[in-house]
Structure formats: C-alpha cells, structure tokens
C-alpha cells in the first residue's frame, strides 16, 4: 500500500489522467442511470409505487391492459385469493381547462387497497405536475366525453403512466367517460397464481407490458452496460501499459525477495484509490444533477443506484486491473537483470 501510494505520488500525471477518465465515465454512467430511472418513473411511477405482488389481466388481452376486461367471476377469484386485492383501470385521454386548453391525462379508477387515492363522484385528483400548469384545488376541469365538469379535489406526488400525468377519478365517472363498467387489472400484494382465464404478472413483468417501457429501458441499460465494459477495458489497458513499463522493476523486486502477492496488492490498492477518488466527485455531480435538473427533465438518482454503480465500478476496476496484472506473474528476475535499468 505504501509502495502503491509512493508510485502514484511520483508519477502523478499518469494516475491523474486515469482518475479523470474514470471520473468522466462514472459520471456519465450515473447520469444515464439517473435518466433511466427518471424515464422509468415518468413512464410507470403509478405501478412502481405499488408493493411487490401479482397483477392479473384477462388471458385473452394478450398482455395489453387496454384489451383486458375482468368478468365478475374473475374478480371473485382474485378476491378469494390470499392477500389484499385492488382493481383498477387505466385509459389515456385528455383534460380541458377553463380556456379549453388540452392536457394529456391517464385516467385511473380503482377499488380496494390504499395504493390510489379515493375519489368521490364529480371529483378528480391530479398528479402534482398539473399544479405547475396553474391548476388549483377547487378548479373545474372538463372532458369532451363527460357532460359535467370535474372538480379538482387534490394533488398527488409523482403519479405518471406512459409519460402522461395521471388523473384519479371515481368509477362512475370513469364508466361514463369510457363506457366501461368492469376493471382491466387486478392486483394482490402476494404471489398467487390463479385460474386459467387470468394471466398473472409479477411487478417487473407487468411493467414490461406498458408500451415502450421495456424498449426504452433496454436501450438505456445497454448504454450503461457498455459504459461498464468500457470502464473494465480502460482499467485493463491502462494497468497493462503501466505494468509493461514496470516489468523490469517487478523483476528486480522479485529478485530481492518481494512477494508476488505484494505486487498485486500494490496494483489493487492503486486501482481502489483511483476508483474511490474518482467516484466521489462523480457521485457529487450526479446528486447535483438530481437536485437541480430542469423541471421537464426526468432524472432520478436514488441511493440504491449510486451504491450499485459504485460497487460495480470497484468490481470492474478490480477485474480489469487483475486481468492486466497477470503480467506480474510473468515478470522474471533474470530478464529484468539482463535488461538493465535505473
């Protein structure tokens, strides 16, 4: 460790360059992770806020919630299963303000459970981003599919579906609006597989039924995976180049009796130090983006993502450095002695 630090102190520039590149890549990775989380929330926070459990749709709906319509028998089957049941329906629509300005809205109605707000007939509870558009509690909003206007009863934080703000309405109003008197989706906060007419999904599978959700997340995750691979290669190549330059020194150190394991510890210490020192400003930068990102930019960087990324970078750095460090094993005292040097 002492030797590792002394080498880094002596050859500051080369390690500063590596540290700076690791900082840039880790910041980019955290930023894209934050964006992936933000977009995921923007796409499905309505579902992501629900606990782990099982979602049910009609088997014939072919994984598309808008084609699903649960029969009374199917609802009874869900009700009879263990766990707290909730039924809900989602339809995309529009909402008009006083000036007939249109706002895309995902209308949601539900029954049972306490995951969604309870709404009386004639009222609507909106996602808080409507507040930013100037809507207030008590305002009336209308919809071309309903004769009577709806009064805003309140706002709820971060409730979005398919990149659209959610409006929670009563089942009767939903029925009037969409001519539907059945629910599309059932949910139980437990893992229960029911009869053949119902298809069950865990939370992750259900999220993937949302149009564009999996494609969007897969693209971003691919970028993140590539950044991790690039980081591993960066560590491997950089340490390979440094190790090639140090083969003679390694050989001499082995000749005078320094253990091979000490040379690996030296390299790992350098990798760990560079990674940690580079990760700190990258995490700070990520948190600053999280705090000060513009209103319309979906960005969310939770502690779990930061911890995961930090651990991933350390493991990747370790693997990259170890891969290149296999050269240390090849360092021969005799070769070093015959090569000459300082």
């Amino acid at each position: 460790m002492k030797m590792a630090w002394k080498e880094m102190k002596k050859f500051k520039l080369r390690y500063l360059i590596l540290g700076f590149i690791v900082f840039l890549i880790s910041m980019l990775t955290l930023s894209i992770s934050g964006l992936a989380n933000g977009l995921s929330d923007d796409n499905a926070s309505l579902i992501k806020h629900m606990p782990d459990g099982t979602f049910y749709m009609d088997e014939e709906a072919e994984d598309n919630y808008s084609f699903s319509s649960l029969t009374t028998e199917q609802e009874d089957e869900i009700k009879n299963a263990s766990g707290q049941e909730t039924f809900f329906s989602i339809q995309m629509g529009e909402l008009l303000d006083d000036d007939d300005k249109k706002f895309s809205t995902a209308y949601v109605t539900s029954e049972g459970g306490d995951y969604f707000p309870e709404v009386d007939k004639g009222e609507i509870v909106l996602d808080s981003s409507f507040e930013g558009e100037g809507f207030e509690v008590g305002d009336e909003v209308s919809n071309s599919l309903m004769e009577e206007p709806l009064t805003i009863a309140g706002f709820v934080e971060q409730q979005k579906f398919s990149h659209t703000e959610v409006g929670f309405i009563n089942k009767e109003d939903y029925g009037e609006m969409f001519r539907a008197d059945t629910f599309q989706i059932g949910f139980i906060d437990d893992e229960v597989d029911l009869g053949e007419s119902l298809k069950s999904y865990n939370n992750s599978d259900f999220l993937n039924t949302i149009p564009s959700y999996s494609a969007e997340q897969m693209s971003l995750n691919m970028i993140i995976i590539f950044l991790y691979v690039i980081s591993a290669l960066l560590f491997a190549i950089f340490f390979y180049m440094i190790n090639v330059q140090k083969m003679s020194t390694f050989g001499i150190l082995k000749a005078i009796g320094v253990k091979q394991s000490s040379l690996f510890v030296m390299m790992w210490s350098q990798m760990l130090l560079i990674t940690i020192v580079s990760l700190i400003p990258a995490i700070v930068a990520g948190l600053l983006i999280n705090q000060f990102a513009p209103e319309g930019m979906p960005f969310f960087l939770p502690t779990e993502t930061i911890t995961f990324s930090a651990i991933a970078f350390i493991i990747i750095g370790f693997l990259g450095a170890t891969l290149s460090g296999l050269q240390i094993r090849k360092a021969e005292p005799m070769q070093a002695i015959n090569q000459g040097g300082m």
Partner: protein
Amino acid sequence: MSVFELIDIDKEFKNGRNVEKILKSVDLKLKEGELTALTGPSGSGKSTLLTIAACLQKKSDGIIKFNGQDISKESDGKIRNIRAEKFGFVFQQAHLVPFLTVKEQLELMLDTANVKLDKKDRKIDKVLEAVDLSNHKDSYPESLSGGEKQRAAIARAIIHDPEILFADEPTASLDSKRSKEVMELIKSLSAKLGITVLMVTHDMDMLEYADSRVEMKDGQITAVE
C-alpha cells in the same frame, strides 16, 4: 569453513532441437567472510553460475548447500524468503525502484527481509554514511549519478545484514575511478560486516580486492587461486 557450496551443478538450455550445456559439473565453495571473484571470458558461464547460486534461476542438476542445508529442493516461497533475508544482490546496473527515494529503497528492503528494528532510521543513516550517500537520502534514482546509483544499490544489498552478497559485474557500468570506489566499498563492508561475497568480474584490476579467484571456461571451473 564454507558457508555456501555448489556441488556438481549442471545447466542446460534448449536451443531449438539442440541442447546446450552451459555449466558442466561445477563445484564451488565460498568461505565465510571471503570475497570470491569469478572470472572468465564471455560465455564461460560465470553469470549463469552466480544467478543459479543466488537461486534466481533453476539449475538442471546438482546441489546448492547454504549453511550445510540443501536449499535447491526448497519451495519457491522458501527460496524467496532466503533470497530476501539471507542474500544481497548487486547487479551490473543499479536496478533501483524509480519511484522510491534512496531511503525508501532501503526501507523496502528491510520490510521485505522482515527485519524488525526499533531504530530503522538509525540503521539506514549508518548504512548511507558507509556508502557516502547521506546527502542523497531523499533523492530519487533519476537525480543520482551512475556511481551514486551503484552505491545506493550496494546500500540496499547490505541494509538487512545478508550472509552472502552476490555481485554480477558491479563495476561494469562505471569508470575506473568509480569502479575502484565501489570495490573498496564492497571489500570494506564485507570485512566489517563479515559478509561472504561472490562477484563476477571481467575487470582484472578488480581482482586485487578478492580473497580468492575462480576461473571459468566453457562452463567449467579451470582454476582456483
């Protein structure tokens, strides 16, 4: 009394389909506290013999006895410990670690040799004084002259009080004045600390410092004086 003994040492190298015999049944004894010079023409096998004796490369056959014990059959780890604790090395080039100061090179050697000293600094100061490098304690190798580097290498080779010092043409890269200084240093340290020295040299002027001389030719010892 011989502290170190090579018995019937053979060394073969494969060169394509041919097998070249570099050392042929070499026997050599080193007496405690003596400086033995190994001389001979290029290709006679003297450097190969020294590196085999120092356990830096493997022999093809034979026995290496150190303090009466056959060390040639020991594990790599045990041999590494013997090299670190009991042997010292000086090569043609100083081979100092480029990112350590002179003092740090000596500290590294003490740590490698597992030397537990309460007053490491005092020991380092004493050795640096002996090699006349007290003023370069905090210098990096790049700022030292050739002679200073070689003296620093000698300091590293003896800081842990080794029993045997292996020196492979330690003056080859130095001018005659510096060569003389380095040889006087090795000789005086050997005498003062009782270190046994095996030194390969081409330079006949350096033989005046040797207690005994072993002449090699074509992989065999041809004369012992």
